[in-house]
């Protein structure tokens, strides 16, 4: 759980309070906190004068607008066909070993969440993953090791 403090008010100031401001506002919250708490969704609903169920319904449509707790770094491993042919399995295994979690879980210190995602447009450099917004491609065990270690120190 996190406090949104003035974040939502600031986002409303920046993007406005019309319905079409909803996506940028939700994206802004997720950028900062990686997921949407119920409180955050309720506050957005109030600001935009729409129902909380609609905010939830909209957010839950988009796989990057998580409504369940997520870690500080969300790792999304591509599972679509080319990545799956080119070693997605090892990528996941390596990550699961390093982080001691399974797909869908978050490390107990709240730092990493491991997820799968659909094609992210790096098929020619498969296998690939995103950590928050940053793509990593042509992954090998060694490469993943280095990347994750780096994040552990961030």
């Amino acid at each position: 759980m996190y406090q949104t403090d003035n974040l939502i008010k600031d986002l409303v100031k920046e993007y406005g309070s019309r319905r079409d401001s909803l996506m940028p506002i939700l994206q802004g919250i997720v950028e900062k906190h990686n997921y949407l708490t119920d409180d955050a969704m309720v506050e957005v609903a109030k600001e935009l004068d729409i129902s909380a169920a609609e905010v939830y319904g909209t957010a839950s449509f988009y796989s990057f607008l998580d409504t369940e707790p997520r870690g500080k770094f969300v790792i999304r491993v591509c599972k679509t066909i080319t990545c799956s042919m080119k070693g997605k399995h090892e990528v996941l295994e390596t990550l699961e070993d390093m982080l001691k979690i399974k797909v869908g879980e978050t490390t107990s210190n709240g730092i990493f969440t491991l997820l799968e995602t659909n094609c992210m447009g790096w098929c020619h450099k498969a296998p690939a993953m995103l950590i928050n917004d940053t793509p990593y491609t042509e992954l090998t065990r060694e490469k993943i090791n280095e990347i994750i270690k780096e994040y552990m120190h961030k």
Partner: protein
Amino acid sequence: MMETKKISKVDLIFEDIDPREILTRVKGMSATEIIEEVLESGLKGRGGAGFPTGMKWKFCSEEKEKDKYIVCNADEGEPGTFKDREILDRVAQKVYAGMTIAGKAVGAQTGIVYLRGEYKFLLPQLRAELEKFHKMIHELGFDFRIDFRIGSGAYICGEESALFESIEGRRGEPRNKPPYPTSSGLFGKPTSINNVETLVNSVIILKYGSEFYKKMGTQFSTGAKVFSVSGDTPKPGIYELELGMSLLEFVNEFGDGDTKAVQVGGAAGFCVPRKLFASTVIGFEGVPTGGSMKLFNSSRSMYNVLHNYLDFFNEESCGQCTPCRVGCQQLLKGVESVKRGESKSTYIDELVKLAATMKVASKCGLGQSVGNAFNSIVENFREEIIY
């Protein structure tokens, strides 16, 4: 048999040109002149559906509304497609120029680039380029402004009306058509929505002329196209090739010597087996593609390929209409059940019929195209799917 062209690489999309020069010329042209030129070139949309771009602009320009929009579709979610990212990464100014030209053609002052969330890392660089661009067109006297909207991980938002819904702050559920975007699109206003590559093509056409453009490709598929090549190939990557080559030509160039099938057009496209390579034309008269070319060699299980695609659709369908929402689940569970021996192998035939229904009864292009991959894979690799 259809006439095919030899494989022929070109370098136009990524060519380093000064958009100022073209835009200066466009400034002096009338909307009708621009539209005529694009119509004459035979350019068809590069986002998948292949609608003639000139027609789209014409319809939109004929609308009487004051507010109109140009939307650049940079949602690029089709599995195996990554050319739009490359274009935006390398020649963003040309994309913006294409939007400005479209704006002039249809009479719109606002452009929006809908960039998929997976490409958000490009945003700082794209914004910097945009700032330069805005300055330039301001100097040239264009009344046109571009802004960004970012997706959040939903393939269906590449579908034009779902994309509008998403920008409007809703779930990305495709709308009923008609009305079409050119009369009622974003915020209910006339909208021309074009793929990233289509827009760059319009710049090429206005620079080199429609005559030059038409010389590339075939009668029904003029011009060249950026292909995203991946899978079992020694040289995966981005290639700009004239349209109209045979798939055999393509495989000879990009295959690893053991290609058994090519998925043309991504998960929504068709699976072409080896025996049909020679007779398959890549283009609107044959098998169209938004650019995705995925090669599979004989070590690959086509069951896994199919399963992967079905899993994709199962998650990425918006879920609003019955044939697609439930159909995708049934196809996925169905092939699993046959594979496990829980359903008879003839159940596959029921699923083929179901896929045919999805093709005609689904609300949008997603549900309508699930049957492409399903039926072409099942028809050609039935044994692999069942046993």
